[in-house]
């Protein structure tokens, strides 16, 4: 790879007529193929169309395009026009439009988008945005925008430089405060060089990838749209995320049919395949050519990956294909990879020591947990672990992970305050907890209180705010947290809310309604399923002396059975025992002093 920008990388493959992207739109039809050459021409036309709409160098362009090939045309078209693309996830469900519009309004406003490109289906929903987003001039459909220019149109007079901002990656989850991770071409090219290089997964022109990841998320966009053109790979197949969720076997079948060598997915996707895919769906499936099954974007559970490897070994899957990695949007995409073809490795540590922030090797006869090895930091990048005082920590000491190097973002778009908070002495603070053994990273928690379910981040503040809106809940007296649950293979999400005290059938009925409404609001507004709502009498939730809610303390109390005794639903002793034994609850409990706002 020699290009300095993605625009240059795209131009370098512009003559490839037989290799490119394929899009699986319907399960029963063959994928639709778009060669790099076709895509180059379409992106050029799209760039010209954006210029015709008045888009100038540095302008932000919102992209709300459910169709993966239109989305790719537009994100590359924006780059060729010198504009900054802002990918926004399309609406998924009619029932959630209000929350969707609120989130989209915030993102467009924060990014300062002047133009939005969308499609015919989504456009009617977006009508209100014209008045609610200052500075938004045009909402246009992809088809109508392109119709304004000829098929051979090209953008005029744009030179894209390595230091130009390539696009903004808005972090998911927070409805009230979206943050636009600002990445330059140089950032992306540095990360892509590391991902595919000799210390990475060694991508070649023979590589074939399959992905169902959403393209508005960093792993799908950078990993499977940008990286392939830089390495001029043979082919990439995109499956719609919804199709994967409906029928996970489509992913495995396509890996087999495309003879794919590379795929990536969050931990939950491997778990979903193990539980949902039936043998009858796998006739003829052969996974033996797959040599990179990347796993990232959410905490990795050793047991989930092992179960997948066992379940699909008869179909040729090799556990050496698993490639646990650590990454985050603020670092372009990836940070550490394990060695290619190494077998899945976990560090067995003493549970009790881990609670004290020391990752001591397990002792015979004492509780232990397996922490997945995520490998080494990329060449040319730096990673360190710091203690609470911000000082570098030693081997096997649990602390916050900090990063430095060419993949680190420029900051959050138009947000100097939170950009400043994200850095510490020139290092990017990740908010994640981990420890090093011989230079290999083991991730074991978050110092931020994020709830991560199915690869998506939820800010507890958002969940708490939604719950606070429900009648009967004492406003501001709600704590939301997630605890790792070994049986679910994901976090168990708890909302603990204080309600007015009282007894009797009428109060029970009112509480049941409150409980239902909290669950419903979280689903509607945030698309988050709450596993348990714990209703408590006033004064039950732990607070600091200054009155701030203590989330990790609440999680600890819940895990030890102290929260909601006699008030919550029937005792779930088995579950509580599981939770108490999980490393997440221990680690969170050991960090009780560290609370966000």
């Amino acid at each position, binding site marked *: 790879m020699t290009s300095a920008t993605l625009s240059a990388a795209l131009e370098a493959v512009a003559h490839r007529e037989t290799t490119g992207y394929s899009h699986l739109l*319907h*399960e*029963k039809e063959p994928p639709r193929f778009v060669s790099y050459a076709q895509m180059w021409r379409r992106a050029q036309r799209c760039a010209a169309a954006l210029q015709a709409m008045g888009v100038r160098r540095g302008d932000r362009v919102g992209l709300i395009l459910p169709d993966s090939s239109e989305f790719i045309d537009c994100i590359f078209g924006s780059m060729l026009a010198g504009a900054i693309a802002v990918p926004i996830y399309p*609406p*998924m*469900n*009619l*029932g*959630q439009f209000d929350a969707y519009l609120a989130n989209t309004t915030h993102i467009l406003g924060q990014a300062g988008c002047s133009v939005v490109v969308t499609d015919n*289906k989504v456009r009617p929903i977006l009508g209100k945005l014209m008045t609610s987003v200052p500075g938004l001039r045009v909402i246009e459909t992809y088809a109508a925008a392109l119709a304004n220019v000829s098929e051979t149109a090209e953008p005029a007079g744009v030179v894209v430089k390595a230091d130009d901002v390539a696009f903004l990656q808005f972090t998911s989850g927070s409805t009230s405060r979206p943050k636009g991770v600002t990445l330059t071409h140089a950032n992306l090219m540095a990360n892509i060089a590391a991902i595919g290089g000799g210390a990475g997964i060694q991508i070649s022109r023979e590589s074939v990838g399959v992905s169902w990841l959403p393209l508005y998320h960093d792993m799908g966009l950078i990993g499977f749209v940008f990286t392939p053109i830089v390495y001029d790979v043979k082919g990439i197949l995109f499956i*719609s995320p*919804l*199709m994967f*969720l*409906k*029928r996970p076997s489509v992913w495995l079948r396509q890996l087999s049919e495309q003879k794919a060598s590379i795929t990536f997915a969050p931990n939950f996707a491997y778990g*979903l395949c193990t539980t*949902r895919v039936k043998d009858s769906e796998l006739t003829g499936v052969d996974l033996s050519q797959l040599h990179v099954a990347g796993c990232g974007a959410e905490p990795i559970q050793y047991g989930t990956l092992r179960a997948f490897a066992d379940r699909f070994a008869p179909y040729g899957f090799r556990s050496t294909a698993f490639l646990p990695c650590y990454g985050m949007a603020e670092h372009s995409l990836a940070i550490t990879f394990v060695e290619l073809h190494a077998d899945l490795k976990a560090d067995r540590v003493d549970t009790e020591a881990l609670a004290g922030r020391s990752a001591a090797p397990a002792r015979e006869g004492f509780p232990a947990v397996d922490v997945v090895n995520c490998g080494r930091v990329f060449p040319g990048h730096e990673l360190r672990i710091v203690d609470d005082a911000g000082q570098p920590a030693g081997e096997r000491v649990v602390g916050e992970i900090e990063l430095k190097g060419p993949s680190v973002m420029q900051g959050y778009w138009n947000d100097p305050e939170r950009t400043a908070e994200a850095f510490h002495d020139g290092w990017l603070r990740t908010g994640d907890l981990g420890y090093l053994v011989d230079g290999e990273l083991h991730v074991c928690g978050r110092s931020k209180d994020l709830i991560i379910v*199915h690869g998506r981040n939820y800010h507890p503040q958002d969940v708490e705010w939604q719950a606070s809106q429900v009648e009967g809940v004492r406003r501001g007296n709600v704590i939301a947290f997630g605890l790792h649950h070994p049986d679910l293979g994901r976090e168990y999400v708890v909302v603990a809310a204080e309600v007015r005290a009282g007894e009797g059938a009428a109060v029970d009925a009112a509480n049941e309604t409150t409980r*239902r409404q909290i*669950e*419903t609001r979280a*689903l*509607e507004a945030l*698309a*988050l*399923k709450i596993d348990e709502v714990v209703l408590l009498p006033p004064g039950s939730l732990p607070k600091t002396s200054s009155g701030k809610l203590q989330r990790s303390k609440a999680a600890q109390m819940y895990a030890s059975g102290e929260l909601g005794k006699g008030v919550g639903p029937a005792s779930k002793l088995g579950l509580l025992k599981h939770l108490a034994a999980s490393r997440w609850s221990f680690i969170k409990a050991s960090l009780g002093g560290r609370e966000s706002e």
Partner: protein
Amino acid sequence: MTITAEHSYDNVLAKIFQYLEEHASERAAVDVTAKSRLIQDLGLDSLQSFEMVSDLEDSLGITIPMDLFQDVETLEDVARAVVRVANDDRGAQVV
């Protein structure tokens, strides 16, 4: 061709009710009707909704295109989408 007994609206709806009874017991207290909304009334998350759809597909031997699901809110909507696809597959005219 006409709609077969197997793929009639009532039949599909009955299959959905049966499915929910078997798989979503946590909400047994709620009266499930054709008007029940998947998210608000039944408390299904997106993964559970999709699992229900794929199980329906298997039991009826059909494939439901993803775009039909943009407009689904209630069980009634699901049943209508299924019937529509089932009859399209047979080359029948949609009534």
